[in-house]
């Protein structure tokens, strides 16, 4: 192998950054996704439209365009944010739209009769969501959420354009320092593959446990 141990050390560190970025994107995206989903499902016509527009826009605009937009837009309104914030913001806004759709799909998987039963028993709207809809929807959405996490790990390679030292950026640096682009990029690719195969394995495990729990 022509990539030195030194370079592999940098790549391992960068892999940590990639995972941390994606985790932040998933976490903030989950908050956005939940709010958008609740707005669409039980927020009245105006909120539902707003939620629908959010999903349409943030699924329709390519992530690279979104990232550059945030990167250039925030300074114009006087917010000089670090690249890291722009990157996490872009990942979260985009992932939020996809997670909203995942949660909406999962909610459709909760039998309608349960909502009616809860209403008949006098559950408040908040309790209905907190105790009945969300716990079940979350369990159903575990497999697609793991899938979304894998997609986000891959999407995070685009934040290399705003200069964050994640796997792709570090691979580019190694390639230009060593004049060995093939080895550098293949090594970077293998790090992504290792992360994603691990996630897919965990996903399979979680899916089986969730199915067992549902029975």
């Amino acid at each position, binding site marked *: 192998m022509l990539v030195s141990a030194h370079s592999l050390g940098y790549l391992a560190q960068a892999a940590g950054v990639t995972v941390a970025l994606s985790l932040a994107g998933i976490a903030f995206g989950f908050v956005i996704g939940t709010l958008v989903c609740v707005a669409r499902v039980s927020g009245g016509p105006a909120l539902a439209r707003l939620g629908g527009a959010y999903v349409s826009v943030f699924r329709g605009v390519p992530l690279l*365009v979104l990232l550059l937009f945030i990167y250039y837009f925030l300074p114009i309104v006087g917010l000089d944010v670090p690249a890291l914030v722009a990157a996490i913001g872009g990942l979260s806004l985009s992932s939020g739209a996809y997670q909203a759709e995942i949660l909406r799909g999962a909610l459709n998987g909760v039998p309608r009769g349960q909502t009616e039963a809860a209403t008949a028993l006098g559950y408040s709207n908040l309790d209905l969501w907190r105790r009945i809809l969300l716990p079940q929807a979350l369990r159903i959405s575990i497999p697609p959420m793991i899938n979304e996490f894998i997609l986000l790990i891959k999407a*995070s390679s685009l934040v290399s354009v705003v200069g964050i030292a994640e796997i792709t950026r570090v691979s580019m640096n190694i390639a230009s320092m060593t004049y060995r682009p093939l080895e550098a990029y293949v090594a970077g690719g293998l790090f992504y593959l290792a992360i994603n195969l691990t996630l897919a394995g965990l996903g399979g495990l979680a899916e089986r446990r969730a199915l067992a729990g549902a029975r």
Partner: protein
Amino acid sequence: MSWDVLLHYAPALIRGFGVTIACWASGCALGLVLGFAVALGAEAPSRALRAVLRVYVEVLRGTPFLMQLFILYAGGPSLGLRLSATTAGVLGLGLYSSAYFSEIFRGAFAAVPRGLIEAAMSVGMAPFDILARVRAPIAFVAASPPIVNTLIVMSKETVVLSIITVPELMYEMQTMAAETFTAFDAIFAMAVFYWCLVEVVSRIGRRVEKRAAAFLVSHA
């Protein structure tokens, strides 16, 4: 929005739009053909071939598209593979999308009712005829909604080609932005443009989905 700037750069932007559409169409066409072949190969009796194809799909789906482009475009010359940015971009898009298309076709083949294949066998159709006249037509219809979905995903992936300097729309926009200090306007226009593109294709997709569903119900 500075309209005179946009007007001045209109020829370059229109060319860029053409390149975007051409890369999208040819990349996805390549991906569909490769994906179909991989899905057929996954049924081969040879275990080794099946394992190789599995690795092919997992590697292409498990690594970022940008990384694959770098390997092809920057790493290729180390293997004697010197590609222009556009060729590398189209080839990259074809390989990347083929992994997704192959999974779609695999699922669609599995959805062809077993009884139809048995009926075709019992009237003495050759395996190739069964594929060409029974399995493939039904699989294509069943696969059409997810294919449209993947086409939409790939239309957004084409902007990544700008990073390896393929002169598509995003690249031309960024050139304009850099030369005229209109970064914000340019990016905003790009966001609106892609949103419109995706909305239009999704609408077509929903129509395709309805027709495909109606066809499958009436023929199965």
